[in-house]
């Protein structure tokens, strides 16, 4: 026999607004995803990668300052390294924007866009069933539809779940790496000189987060079978990437079938590593000679990415995702 009153009680408190309800959907989705042990490991891995990047930035920072711990240590190790460090220090003094800003921009582009975006895409693939797939399979979509949320609120919440995951596995570690790397730098001026890298990370991060989240939402709505949607996502990613690689010479337009390739082109347009290399070539003769060995075609690809066609194909993909969601995400 319960000790408390088990009769029905009316409730007359204040209802929370619609944004809180959307947040509840997003938070519930994110916590549901993170119950997966492998996804937890992946998130930890991404943050370890972010911290490693911060460590690299710290090391570069130390190389650029005379009498820093690393320079002293290198000097003790080998006197030639001390003279190399002195060269770098003089480089910082003469070109602070290039030595800090350009270095970090190029580093964030290659490590972030080229390498660390992959775990984020992988994480989205693992979380895909938690977005719409399971709700379609279990009819939970009816429960959402019968509550004080619209289909738009539901989709917004699920979109935010996917976006939250990308923020957790990519944008978060990248920004943390930037802050920590510059915080540990020997000079506060690093924050100022490296501002462009952070801006590019945020700009590309927000764009990539929105695009990837919307695409993941579309793929998760294709079928109520978890294995199907997950397999589709990974197939699209891997096969698309392979096609982009193979079609580079013969049918360049086929490369755009890979969302990863399109994102990479947008990354090139945002970070503009080609421009950075040109600046280095123009201002620092030593590097200029080294860059002469880089094939013209590679430099062209860096300087003139086919960004508009990539944006066009991504828009087509987003339109297809929207059409799938519109057709599939219904109560019955």
């Amino acid at each position, binding site marked *: 026999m319960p000790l408390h009153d088990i009769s029905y009680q*009316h409730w007359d408190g204040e209802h929370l607004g619609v944004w809180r309800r959307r947040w*509840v959907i997003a938070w*519930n989705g994110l916590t549901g995803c993170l119950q997966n042990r492998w996804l937890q490991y992946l998130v930890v891995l991404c943050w370890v990668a972010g911290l490693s990047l911060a460590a690299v930035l710290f090391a570069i920072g130390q190389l650029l300052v005379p009498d820093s711990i690393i320079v002293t240590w290198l000097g003790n190790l080998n006197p030639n390294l001390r003279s190399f460090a002195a060269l770098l220090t003089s480089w910082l003094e003469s070109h602070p924007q290039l030595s800090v800003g350009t270095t970090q921009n190029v580093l964030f582009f290659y490590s972030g866009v080229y390498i660390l975006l992959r775990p984020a895409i992988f994480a989205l693939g693992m979380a895909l069933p938690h977005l719409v797939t399971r709700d379609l*399979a279990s009819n*939970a979509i009816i429960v959402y539809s019968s*509550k*004080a*949320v619209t289909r738009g609120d539901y989709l917004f919440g699920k979109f935010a779940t996917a976006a939250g995951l990308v923020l957790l596995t990519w944008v978060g570690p990248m920004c943390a790496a930037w802050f920590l790397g510059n915080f540990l730098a020997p000079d506060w001026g690093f924050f100022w000189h490296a501002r462009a890298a952070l801006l590019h990370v945020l700009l590309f991060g927000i764009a990539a987060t929105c695009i990837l989240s919307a695409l993941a939402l579309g793929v998760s709505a294709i079928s109520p079978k978890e294995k199907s949607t997950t397999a589709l996502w990974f197939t699209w990613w891997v096969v698309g990437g392979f096609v982009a690689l193979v079609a580079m010479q013969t049918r360049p337009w086929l490369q755009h079938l890979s969302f990863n390739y399109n994102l990479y082109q947008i990354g090139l347009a945002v970070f503009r590593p080609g421009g950075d290399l040109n600046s280095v070539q123009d201002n620092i003769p030593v590097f200029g000679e080294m860059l002469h060995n880089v094939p013209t075609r590679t430099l062209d690809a860096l300087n003139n990415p086919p960004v508009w066609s990539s944006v066009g194909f991504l828009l087509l993909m987003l339109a297809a995702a929207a059409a799938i969601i519109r057709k599939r995400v219904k*109560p019955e």
Partner: protein
Amino acid sequence: MQRRDSQHGPAMQASTVIETSALCKIYGKQRALDGVNLKVERGAIGLLGPNGAGKSTLMKCLLQLHPITSGSARLLGREVGAEGREIRKRVGYTPEQDCHIPGMVGCEYVTYCAQLCGLPFQAARQRAHEMLDFVGMGQERYRKIDTYSTGMKQRLKLAQAIVHDPEIVFLDEPTNGLDPKGQAQILELIHSLWRTYGITVVVSSHLLHDVDRICEQIIIIARGQVLVHDTLANLKARRRGAAEVVLAERQRELMDACAQRQWPSDLLPNGHVRVEHRADSLNPLLGLLNERKLEPLEIIPSPNALEETFVRALEISHAAA
């Protein structure tokens, strides 16, 4: 515990909760709802009809789960289709099929449903536990829903439908899959929602017994049309003056006596004599039997209007099939 009508404002006290005008819902070539006109007062309302009659469709149209093809509908004084979020904040719904979120435990799920209706987390969690107590769920609430029996799932569905304290609850086949004891418990809970707590209840069922037990108003639907909408008391009071008399012998004698009183009678294939005595009570028929010293084994009164209309709905449905 106070009933809702004594504690809420004038808008809540409006007696008409559902109003439809020429409501139509068409799926492809099939008219699931065909010009439904209703004006339903607050109370315990039974939506009765055979499978495929349009009961669930009517509920879903009112809840805006399905768009209305033509006509109009108002729920709790608000236009259906225009004010979805506001309407659903004040409405609860238990769908016919299972619809839980996989991987969640019972109390988490009900808390989440309350939050979706706008309750703050603390209040949502407290009410979730209160409602789970109310529907009679014990420690099972801490188990994953995937492991629940059908009865537990039905209770959980009811808990999630009332957790945000709605003014009206739509229950679609709430006793499906339950054993007789479970059915009785769920029906008693549903009955108490209106009788004790003043929450209007709309129960859709194809079981006459269920709605007969808990509802005050009855709407019978067949092939998307409303056949009857009246109070249960009125429907039960409406009987045609007829009865079946079960006799071991002397059936012909009874028929002759009826003929003398100009009461039409028939000998049915099962040996019963069907007599149309045209009276509100069985007294004239009993008088005749007594007069002729006929000793019936049983007298079966004619079915009331509720039963007759329900049977007619079934016939219409079968004819269509």
